[in-house]
């Protein structure tokens, strides 16, 4: 088993990863109220250097997703099939994540709630559907 992939933790994004360890999902904002992820030293909209971290409510919705049926890394061999989902936080920023449900139950705009999980020393922001999925679409391949 290869080691779980690690993020490259920098001065810039350390608050994001530390925040998850403390149970908080942080995004960034500037005095003009632009909001974004991942963490940067300058606002990508107005280029202000006055950036700060703000805690997300943890509410989000599904934008899109893919399902891996093969693993590109040994750490994911035992997890296939698994989804990688693009979600939008209630506050606006979008991020990649995993949604913790049967991938066949995923739907556009499905409401989600943050669930922080441990991967060894690392804390990762994953999401779970707010309601039990109503139906499961069988994929015919």
């Amino acid at each position: 088993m290869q080691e779980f992939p690690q993020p490259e933790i920098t001065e810039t994004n350390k608050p994001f990863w530390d925040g998850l360890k403390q149970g908080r999902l942080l995004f960034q904002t500037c005095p003009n109220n632009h909001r974004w992820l991942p963490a940067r030293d300058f606002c990508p909209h107005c280029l202000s250097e006055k950036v700060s971290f703000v805690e997300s409510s943890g509410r989000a919705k599904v934008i899109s997703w893919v399902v891996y049926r093969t693993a590109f890394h040994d750490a994911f061999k035992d997890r296939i099939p698994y989804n990688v989902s693009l979600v939008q936080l209630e506050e606006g920023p979008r991020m990649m994540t995993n949604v913790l449900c049967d991938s066949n139950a995923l739907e556009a705009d499905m409401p989600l709630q943050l669930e922080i999980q441990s991967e060894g020393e690392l804390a990762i922001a994953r999401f779970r559907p707010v309601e039990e999925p109503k139906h499961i679409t069988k994929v015919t391949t």
Partner: protein
Amino acid sequence: MNNLTRMRGKYVIAGIGHTAFGKLPGRSTVSLNTEACRNALLDAGINKDAVNALFVKVPTSARDFMYGQKLAEAMGLRPKLGGSWDQGGAANVALISHAMSSIEAGQCDVALVCYADNPRSGNRQVYSRPRGDDAVYGWFSTAAGYAMIQRRHMLEYGTRPEDLGLIARACRRHGSENPRAQLRAALTAEQYLASPMTLEPLRRDDTCLVSDGGAAVVIMSADHARSLGVSNPVPILGIGQGQTSAELAARDTLTSTEAEVSARTAFAMAGLAPKDIDVVQIYDCFTIAALMTLEAYGFCPKGQFGAWAAGGRLEIDGDLPMNTSGGLLSETGMPGLQLIIEGVRQMRGTANLQVSKASTCLISNQGGTMHTHGTLILGN
């Protein structure tokens, strides 16, 4: 006449060259590039001494420091301008545009634009690499990004696998008739739908080939081509570019890109509209990329691709033949210069599957996960 339209037809592709496609073990990218460039110079009928610019797209799977200079050394060139350039598969169109601008500015006269790579017999790790810190979610590979975009297109517009299959089937039909193509197997609708889904919703047959090979074109002004006695120059009527740039999570939308801007520039320069185009070579690294390009360019109403393309519209006997040598899905998975070369052949009337009386050919290039885009319109 503005600066853009003043360039219409002023520059030409004077020569084209390429290597064999497929698996070429033991060949370095410098060797493949040298062969492609030599063939392009032979095709143009000019001596290498006429070349004073060498622009090369960085080999995707085998990046190298000062690569442009290594290639110039191998070809015994001391160009005024040269170097390697990285913006993924849209680099070919970008480098042709740089060549035109540099010639226009009097900085050089004749430019070689080339690309080679050997991921099939070498290392293809670049295509399965972790995508930054998002690897913690299992986010790996180039294909996954296109799968994510395809899913969103299916959600927003009801795009069906069968619709994407129309692209794969057109490319595979044309490739099956191309003796140089790496994959010469036509594809039925049933075979397409039965193709394995390793990264849902992508099917294997939505996915381009991995190929060794090289390709090159010679760029100069139409005037210079006349003075050098170039026998078959093909005029560049329009060229444009656009860069979406952001990673998927930082985009407001997954289903529109700067391909629209790129096409607008190229059509404006050429003074043409989609209805004036006779044949297209559309970058088909994944079928969704080609579908969205045809939408962005205005060939097809957005979200209505399936109905628009039905009945073989994109096939050689249809209204808008696409990827007449097989594209990335069938001829070679090389990132895009081969599409430009096929466009030149169509305008010369020398293509393997020639579109009769074709007088305009549009070519699209794109790179990354639709991060960059380039459009080229050729005439005759």
